[in-house]
């Protein structure tokens, strides 16, 4: 290393100025119309398994510069609950996960460690936010009418500390109009099938924005599963669903007149079969991708009654929802039946694989995709009721 390089390396101290340069480069690179004031941020890349030592080091250096976020900022799940460490992850990993969480705390972020930032505080319709975590992005745009592109962990972080983001894509109202009209011809489907429908929409329409009519169900948890699966399959940031989503009246006036696409039950079932390995008996049950809401916790508790599980059951939620569920008595019922309530972490970026599960049942199409393709497991996609009975 020569002197100039040595100087450059030692001068590597990320600060608010670095983050401002980053936002400006992203503005120029994306062809944005200038910058827009951002009101809320959600940061991904929090699990040590995801960002590794390199990410932990950057976050620590940034925190050391004394920079603080300028808005409500929440963060995605980590690799484990560092207090309880339920899967017995090695001490080194736990220490590194703690360093990451401490760095976020130091810059003023709320260490929610959850993928459902809309549970605590809902952004208002039309509010400009910078969210990473694709399932939260599509939920915010579709269900809340808030405006966010699919940010990376670092671009969301840059928006949080500078208060600004590049004004393009979903921040510009005209870009939120539907590109295609899709008629869905099915009755009231369960959440596993809703997820399969979402996955099909994401696969088929890529980054185009669909206007979907014919969806009969109204349960929020089914929509949550549909949207999460759509954003897993492709870059889709927004879906307008007739009778359900936030900007539907506006979107209907701008949707193509004729339905250019139809989706029937047979196609959705075919997609569910592609995501699911139905052949053998599940050896475990994984629920909470995205993290369960209190309504979903209540629903599951109601289904259990006096029953006991004959296989490991993991229920993923945020620390906040977990605490509320404890107060309401749901956690006692679930734990008595043999389920483990897991907080601060996630099915995908967690140490779950250390437990050696091979054939989990889940009601999440998104989880199915990742369990199968990145973890090499043989998941079964079915509704909560079938999961619990499996």
């Amino acid at each position: 290393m020569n002197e100039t390089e040595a100087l450059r390396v030692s001068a590597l101290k990320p600060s608010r100025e670095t983050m401002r340069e980053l936002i400006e480069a992203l503005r120029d690179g994306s062809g944005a119309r200038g910058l827009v004031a951002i009101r809320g941020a959600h940061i991904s890349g929090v699990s040590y398994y995801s960002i590794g030592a390199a990410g932990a080091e950057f976050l620590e250096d940034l925190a050391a510069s004394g920079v603080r976020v300028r808005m409500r900022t929440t963060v995605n799940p980590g690799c484990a609950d560092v207090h309880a460490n339920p899967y017995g992850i090695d001490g080194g990993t736990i220490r590194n996960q703690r360093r990451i969480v401490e760095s976020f705390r130091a810059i003023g972020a709320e260490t929610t460690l959850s993928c459902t930032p809309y549970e605590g505080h809902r952004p208002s319709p039309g509010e400009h936010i910078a969210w990473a975590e694709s399932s939260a992005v599509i939920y915010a745009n579709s269900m809340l009418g808030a405006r966010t592109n699919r940010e990376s962990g670092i671009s969301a972080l840059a928006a949080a500390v500078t208060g600004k983001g590049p004004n393009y894509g979903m921040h510009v109202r005209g870009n939120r109009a539907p590109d295609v009209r899709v008629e869905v011809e099915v009755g009231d489907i369960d959440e596993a099938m809703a997820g399969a429908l979402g996955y099909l929409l994401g696969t088929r329409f890529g980054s185009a924005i669909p206007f979907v009519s014919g969806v009969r169900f109204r349960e929020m948890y089914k929509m949550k599963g549909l949207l999460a699966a759509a954003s897993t399959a492709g870059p889709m940031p927004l879906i307008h669903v007739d009778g359900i989503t936030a900007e539907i009246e506006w979107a209907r006036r701008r949707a193509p007149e004729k339905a250019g696409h139809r989706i029937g039950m047979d196609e959705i079932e075919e997609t569910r079969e592609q995501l699911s390995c139905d052949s053998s008996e599940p050896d475990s049950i994984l629920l909470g991708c995205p993290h369960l809401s209190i309504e979903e916790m209540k629903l599951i508790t109601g289904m259990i009654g006096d029953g006991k599980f004959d296989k490991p059951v993991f229920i993923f939620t945020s620390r906040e929802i977990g605490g509320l569920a404890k107060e309401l008595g749901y956690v006692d019922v679930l734990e008595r039946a043999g389920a483990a309530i897991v907080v601060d972490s996630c099915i995908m970026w967690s140490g779950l694989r250390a437990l050696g599960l091979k054939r989990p049942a889940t009601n999440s199409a998104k989880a199915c995709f990742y369990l199968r393709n990145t973890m090499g497991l043989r998941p079964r996609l079915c509704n909560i009721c079938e999961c619990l009975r499996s």
Partner: protein
Amino acid sequence: MMLSGIVIGRAKVVVGGLAEGKALISSQPITFFGGVDPRTGEVIEDGHEIRGERLSRKVLVFPHGKGSTVGSYVLYSLAKRGVAPAAIINARFDAIIASGCIISGIPLLIAPGRSLGRIRKGDRIRIDGRVGRIVVLGSGSRTRP
């Protein structure tokens, strides 16, 4: 500068700065997360055309990034250890590479594919990231004047 060389084209500057190094070229996109060892800068992606090469002090030329957005942090890790590329030239703006270069102080230029096609592996390249100039000082087979 008195050094002679062939100016092969103007590029758009994303991250400014001066740099010089041997060209390392990949026609395939690069993922820094999972594709490059964050401690040594060695390309480790299975089946990648520059697998086994070390990025340290090279002028790295490739079309654009791919894969996880966490790749930005890997560039930072390389820079902290002094094993980062001297500069990067891409054909297309890519948010992951741009974010990584900004936090790591690595000069980054975006140049049209036809300019990139004139760079050969091992060429000694000078980047003037103040004005976006790319100069070939000497070809891979010759030594620098």
